[in-house]
């Protein structure tokens, strides 16, 4: 980054804040202790803009924009917690819960799950969209990890960490629409993958119980959240 980066001032939730011109609304909000909920965003990975939880209102724009990928502009007036946005966030989360089988009481990440805590944060009390109950497979062929598609929210954090941080690109996503699935190599069992380095980063960036360590039972699978920030910091220091 050049030293001549310009500084912009903007308003987020009625607070005046300063920001570098290349920063996103989400980054600036977090620096200033303003919480915007996110699911697919993870510091240290490229932004994705898919989960839509971080949508904000910007005065003068009828469209809701994802704060993780919208860069600041001078004089911008941003609202992150209007009733309209809160309502949409709840609906979005309900859609997530209705899509696959997120039954917390039998999940290894119960108590450590970001989807679960997000439900509390946005005050989602029940799911009023019909549950779709797909019967998806569980890939338990890997000697150390398990991939349970029933709990995946397709945030692609695992895909991005595998490509961008580990550099293996063992994981990707296949098909499209409601049929998207996380795959390893040519959609073969994970245990047969020739490219997987078994590093486990994917497991620890996964927000839900879709990726867990083998042998963990209900409520035992906490994720090492400090792993990615640590790696990011160490890599930046090397440069």
């Amino acid at each position, binding site marked *: 980054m050049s030293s001549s980066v310009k500084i912009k001032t903007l308003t987020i939730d009625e607070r005046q804040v300063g920001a570098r011109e290349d920063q996103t609304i989400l980054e600036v909000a977090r620096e200033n202790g303003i919480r915007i909920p996110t699911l697919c965003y993870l510091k240290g990975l490229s932004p*994705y*803009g*898919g*989960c*839509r939880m971080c*949508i904000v209102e910007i005065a003068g724009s009828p469209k*809701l*924009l*994802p704060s993780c*990928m*919208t*860069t600041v502009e001078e004089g911008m007036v941003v609202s992150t917690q209007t009733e309209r946005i809160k309502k*949409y966030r709840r*609906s*979005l989360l309900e*859609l*997530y819960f*209705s*899509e696959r089988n997120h039954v917390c009481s039998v999940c290894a990440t119960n108590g450590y799950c970001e989807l679960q805590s997000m439900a509390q944060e946005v005050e989602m009390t029940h799911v*009023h*969209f*019909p549950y*779709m109950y797909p019967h998806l497979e569980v890939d338990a062929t890997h000697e150390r990890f398990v991939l349970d598609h029933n709990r995946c*929210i*397709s945030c692609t954090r695992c895909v991005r960490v595998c490509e961008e941080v580990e550099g293996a690109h063992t994981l990707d*996503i296949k*098909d*499209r*629409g*409601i*049929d*998207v699935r996380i795959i390893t190599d040519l959609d073969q069992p994970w245990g047969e993958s020739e490219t997987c380095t078994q590093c486990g980063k994917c497991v620890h960036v996964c927000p839900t119980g879709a990726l867990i360590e083998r042998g963990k039972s209900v409520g035992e699978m906490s994720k090492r959240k400090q792993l990615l920030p640590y790696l990011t910091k160490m890599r930046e220091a090397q440069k």
Partner: protein
Amino acid sequence: MTPEDFKKIGETHRKKRDGFDYTINVCTAAACVSLQSDKVKDELTRQVKEQDKKDVCRISGTGCLGLCASGPLVTINNDQALYGGVKPEDAAEIVKNIDKKPVKRLQIPADMPFFARQTKIALEHCGKTDPEVIGDYLALEGYEALYNCLTTMEPVEVIDIMVKSGLRGRGGGGYPVGLKWSTVHKAVGAKKFVICNADEGDPGAFMDRSMLESDPHSIIEGMAIAGYAVGASHGYVYIRGEYPLAIKRLKAAIRQAERQGFLGKNICETPFSFDVEIRLGAGAFVCGEETALIASIEGRRGTPRPRPPYPAQYGIWGHPTLINNVETFANISPIVRKGADYYASIGTERSKGTKVFALAGSINNTGLIEVPMGITLREIVYDIGGGILGGKKFKAVQTGGPSGGCIPEEYLDMKVDYESLAQVGSIMGSGGMIVMDETSCMVDVAKYFMDFCQSESCGKCAPCRVGTAQMYNLLNLISQGKATMHDMELLEELCDVVRNTSLCGLGQTAANPVLSTIRFFRDEYLAHINDKKCLAGVCVIEHKEEPVL
């Protein structure tokens, strides 16, 4: 090469043509080819030889004549006679009567409203030239607009013409073309790109296909002019892999243009260089969205990304990129030749010029039409379209495909322009226009489009991925007579969520067919839900005996 040179090529070509008293044009666009117009052409050629009329009569293939419903179409000297439904066995009679009265039983009156009510600008050459011969294009002032831009105008002057013409993007959004060009022109970048979006994905649309099959050079010329205006030296045509004939003709046209020096280095002996490459789409509707299209050209999954930044600033490989669709590019050369004022004199206050529509569905004259903006739907359906097939009762006209809506009879006298269509909950879209009669069920139509949207959703953002699937399931329940009013409320709520929270245009507009059918045909929804009845008799509703309580 100077305009004199290429006029000479055109002249030579014209002379070659004028040496004949009669030119028989056979439509060789896809619709007529599928009705075996190629065999008709072969037989005509054979008959000309056999009846010894080789010196006075030539046979030529030509682009789309528009009236696809009556194919295969054949014309004599363009307007001397128009024949429809021609079979190979009719060839002898056509050739025999070439210098006599037209063959009555095959003749279609050229003054029928289908032709008389149209204004052809983007389609000016369609049906008049052989799309596989560059000389035909040159003979009709082809590439003169490009030459004039390069030799007499600054890029900003070209952009100014587009601004003054009032032309808006014909791909669906209707964004002002001049403004878009100007943004890319001003964008800072060592390299810039021009992309022609020919990934015509709307079900029920075949405008791009017909234009590429009928007049590929006009698209190439439009792109080159755009390249000069915005400062790009490389162009891509992103075309559907499902259009083999259009791809073949475009490829041939690019080669011819390169050979004649209208593409490549130092075009028309000016410093301007521009080339055009073809990229094949592979069956993903979402790639009509600009950022998804770029991802696809870059060899990736065609998933969109949030805008801004817009491709005009940050496009293919991060370079400023201009994206317009086929019809937009087809309008460029005529606008430069005929002037911005001429173009702006057609149409309405905010929607200038003409629009090409693919007219299909339950209508007599299905085909490709070009009409001035501001024409009414009634004129299109009843005058040009010749009314409803089989004398059935009109129910709705669908525009904008899966992003559009169904317009009922009460709005038939509405003017067709961007604003009016939006007001009734539809959109102009790229130009698909499907007419539906009383035998179409509007719940079924909404279900059809939602099925399309859910299977074309890329799956990146949750509202579109899950929301369209949920909406489809609900519409399915309604159509089967298994839904309650609560399901109807859920459906309307989902429409709102998906429209407002989706990442790209596909999700943001996916609810439109549902919303517009609920708005205008609510009684049909209620009949399915409350009375377990499909008024049009399309949906299969199983009646179970209700248990007596």
